[in-house]
């Protein structure tokens, strides 16, 4: 089955670059949501026999990562009436470049980590690390709160990818990872975005600069 896995992973990696290089928030939301859906299907390819528990995990993952959270984000975006990340801390070109460098380094680094026999020819580890890196990049170089949340989602997706290696051995741990989405839920629906938009008239953390040295 694993021959189907790599194309999916490569598509997921490509979506990292879309997320890093696009300024239209709607576009980034779609890219992250699509990546979430792709990831949701992956357990099918990693393990042949997944059982009811696995099917549930797939449904919940796709539902949350692909539809529920992106849906909330779109809602929050409309509410705040913003469409673009105008003036990110790092230009889109540089983000893409750094993303590419990070992906390369992820491949080099993961080749130093010995994999168990049954996983030896999988691209999961480099894909996971590269996605975590892209998420980091977005978190630190975007000013809009929504974009930071999207960066966090990418980071989470990367962690989920690594979790697939453990799905057979420790399903509990992988399921626990779904709790990370709780954070995103809090970020998005919670009072905070609501208040940030009310108090600052646009949900941009640029205005959150009162507290600094």
């Amino acid at each position, binding site marked *: 089955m694993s021959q189907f896995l790599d194309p999916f992973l490569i598509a997921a990696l490509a979506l990292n670059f879309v997320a890093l290089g696009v300024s239209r928030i709607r576009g980034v939301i779609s890219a992250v949501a699509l990546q979430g859906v792709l990831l949701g299907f992956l357990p099918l390819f990693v393990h042949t026999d997944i059982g009811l528990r696995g099917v549930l995990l797939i449904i919940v993952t796709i539902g949350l990562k692909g539809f529920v959270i992106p849906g909330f984000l779109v809602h929050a975006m409309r509410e705040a009436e913003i469409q673009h990340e105008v003036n990110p801390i790092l230009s889109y070109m540089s983000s893409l470049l750094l993303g590419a460098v990070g992906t390369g380094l992820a491949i080099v680094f993961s080749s130093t980590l010995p994999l168990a026999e049954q996983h030896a020819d999988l691209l999961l580890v480099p894909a996971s690390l590269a996605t975590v890196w892209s998420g980091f990049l977005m978190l630190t170089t975007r000013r809009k709160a929504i974009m930071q949340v999207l960066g966090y989602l990418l980071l989470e997706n990367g962690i989920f990818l690594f979790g697939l290696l453990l799905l057979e051995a420790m399903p509990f741990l992988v399921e626990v990872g779904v709790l990370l989405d709780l954070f995103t839920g809090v970020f998005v629906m919670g009072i905070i975005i609501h208040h940030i938009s009310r108090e600052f008239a646009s949900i941009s953390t640029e205005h959150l600069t009162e*507290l600094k040295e």
Partner: protein
Amino acid sequence: MAYLLILFPLAMAAVTFALPSNRWRPWLLPAGALVQLILTLVAVFQPTGQPPVSGLDNWLLLDALGKVILSFLSVLFFLCSLYAPGYLALRVDRPNRVFCANLFVTLSMMTLVALSHHLGLMWVAMEATTLVSAPSIYFNQNARSIEATWKYLLICSVGIALALLGSFFLAYASLKSGLESTLLFDPLIEAAPRLSPQWLHAAFVLLFVGYGTKMGLAPMHTWKPDAYGEAPGIVGTILAGGLTSCAFLAILRVYQICRAGAEAEFAREIMIFIGLLSMAVAAVFMARQKDFKRMLAYSSVEHMGILVLGIGIGGLAVYGALLHLINNGLTKGVLFLSAGNIHRAYGSKLTDDVSGAIRRVPLSGALFLAGFLAITGSPPFGPFVSEFTIVNAAVGSGQFVAGGLFLLLLAVVFIGMGATVLAVVQGNVPEQKQPAAFHDSVATGAPILLFMGLVLLLGVYIPAPLETLLRDAAGFLEVGR
């Protein structure tokens, strides 16, 4: 027993949430905290020969290290809860339903961290503490507290995410070595020598950075000044004394696995480096700090650095670090609560507007000054003893560079922090257009005096039961060195 310790505060949270009276609700805090303190003492000091407190197939287990953390958390929470009614009576304008209930949930989750013997479960509990403590930082509901809460949530949740990735790595380390994959603590310790070293290294780094973010070690400390600066003093105390101790416990668990896997050197070098870096960053930002609550946050960064430095130095310093965890937490109680009182009396927390605190609010001003002397390691207070133990261990084991830098940074911090504290305490009371009505009272003064009394006590005499607990815990961490 284990279930009771976790479920009782949750039940109290539900009761608190259900109680309609804004005025009487805060009194549930000391009542619940007292019961929890008694429960904890029963669990910690149960007669020898009985099976240890455990539950959920040993996913929960109270070991020597957990005993120190758990008893400290209960004492800290109890003393804070004594301050709550007096404080919240001054803030009747704010609904405190969510605030009080959240404090109980935070207590429950901190207890769960202290009891967890499963790294996955511990991770869940740490995540929960982050989520439930966020609304408390947001208590004042103004633009500045939103900013602080946003940064706290965002940075800490990235830390938590990295810690999860680290836990995955650790689980994979055992999978790779052909062992039965587990995150239960005791089997991991047993299997540690056979874990794949590359994965173990990567896991330690991720878990250290992840939980270190929650602990507020430099350079992952950036949320701390904002969160501590904007949160009410009582929340500051619980964050700086309680939550950081939980994160420290998580790091200690991971360190133990590394040590059992004969990778202690690797882990200790990182801890010494980050420990000294945290102290240095704190020293730089504390100098000329005008906001005295932010200054306390940097002091917390400094002391978190001291804790990991102590573990990194090893030997006797491990005992020193555990003692310092208690001393620092209690002294932070004095500082945050008295700073909160001064803030209330002047309506400002900037040294531009605040001076002569010892005249305006004599008790809080004096306690703030005494707390400063204690936290910077002046005798006869508790932190002096623990810091001295750490220096002693560093010199005794020939780690002169670490020991020397430690002393140097302590001196720099003393000078930097002293300038701000003296500016607050001394001088004349400035003319205020609308003088705040706040004055020292029993309700807002006595709990701080209790904190101060304990800090002084630990400086001159460490009670025998506590001594035993600390020795056991240090021995548990240092087994087989």
